[in-house]
């Protein structure tokens, strides 16, 4: 019994001496990173952690600024006011960048290119907005051209959208895996030449990796996007297709796309919304 007590006492002393000698500085970085990772969804504790010491700033900012949303031009103004120097702003921590309308970008003025370029690690880019001018997106796309080499997915949810300019933007991201377009309709812009300064550089590029998912839910059907994909040099290797059919041609194009991705396609979602399959008005049986 006495031996057992001695053993427990020595264990406790060992435990207390360990914690007395262990300070924040000599905890391994991996462990500290792990603590910050646990708090990723809790903004207030993360902000408190950010104040612990300078060494804690990067590991907490990685989560605090992981998702950046600019709904309006005012949001951007606020960002620029808080972080006037793009080169030392926390933009480099952002993994997801969401922009609500092109005015957010064009409002950036002459420095718009600088602040966009400061988002160097963005993997998921989402652009949205309704009733905006297609010309506004044309300007925005030119600024986004090759802006983050780490881009893996692009999600477009806007109308109108100049498809041709958007396709050029897509080609500038070689690591792109996922493409998601919904509620968009094509709004061609008259200048069909090199006025946007991208055509000559883009022609030399092949398709991005496209090893993820393709989501197309467009009023005019999957045609414009799928036809463009199928005419590009390089192979498509999507693992997931989610397509909404709006016309009969969409069925044929889906079949061609499935054949093209036959070695990789694991998941398929098809939504049949074709003329002739309209909803029948139900009448109660009496």
């Amino acid at each position, binding site marked *: 019994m006495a031996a057992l007590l001695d053993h427990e006492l020595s264990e406790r002393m060992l435990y207390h001496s360990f914690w007395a000698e262990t300070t924040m500085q000599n905890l391994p970085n991996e462990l500290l990173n792990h603590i910050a990772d646990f708090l990723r969804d809790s903004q207030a504790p993360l902000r408190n952690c950010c104040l612990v010491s300078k060494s804690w700033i990067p590991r907490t900012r990685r989560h605090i600024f992981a998702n950046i949303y600019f709904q309006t031009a005012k949001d951007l103004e606020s960002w620029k006011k808080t972080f006037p120097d793009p080169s030392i702003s926390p933009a480099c921590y952002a993994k997801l960048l969401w922009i609500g309308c092109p005015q957010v970008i064009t409002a950036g003025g002459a420095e718009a290119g600088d602040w966009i370029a400061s988002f160097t690690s963005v993997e998921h880019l989402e652009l949205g907005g309704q009733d905006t001018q297609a010309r506004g997106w044309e300007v925005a796309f030119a600024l986004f051209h090759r802006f983050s080499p780490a881009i893996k997915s692009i999600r477009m949810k806007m109308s109108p959208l100049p498809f041709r300019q958007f396709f050029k933007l897509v080609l500038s991201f070689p690591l792109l895996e996922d493409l998601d377009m919904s509620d968009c309709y094509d709004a061609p812009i008259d200048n069909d030449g090199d006025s946007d300064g991208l055509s000559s550089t883009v022609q030399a590029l092949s398709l991005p990796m496209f090893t993820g998912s393709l989501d197309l839910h467009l009023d005019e059907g999957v045609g414009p996007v799928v036809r463009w994909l199928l005419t590009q040099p390089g192979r498509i290797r999507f693992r997931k297709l989610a397509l909404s*059919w709006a016309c009969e041609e969409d*069925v044929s194009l889906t079949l061609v796309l499935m054949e093209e991705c*036959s070695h990789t396609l*694991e*998941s398929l*979602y098809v*939504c049949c919304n074709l003329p002739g399959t309209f909803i*029948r008005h139900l009448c109660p*049986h009496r």
Partner: protein
Amino acid sequence: MFLGGPKWTLFTLSKAIKLSDVVFRLESQRVGWVTMALKTVGREHRDLQRISIDVPPFLIIIPAHIYPDVGRAIGEEDLREWLVLDQSLVHLQESRSIHTRVIRPWSRLKRDMVDCIGSLLPESTKRGMIELVG
């Protein structure tokens, strides 16, 4: 019965042999195209584990006490398409152990949904093959 019909009835899964998960989203009660697609599932689709049917809201709000006869409610021809689909699902379950899910938009209508699906896919429901998710 679909030969020479619209193109969506010729939709085939035969080339996509790596598929593991397929979702058919319905925008009407017509399901002939789903059945035709499922008939192209062959032995080479070794990885196929799950087929989901995403049911539109208008279809699941057919309460049994208002529409005791689903055939009359949606039309005999459309009901026939559902019954053929039912047979295909039973066949896939028995021969390939492919799981079937019916995705419903509103959980509060579960009882009506069960009644409705039970009328449209009677054999699959009777055998307890259908998983309702929402």
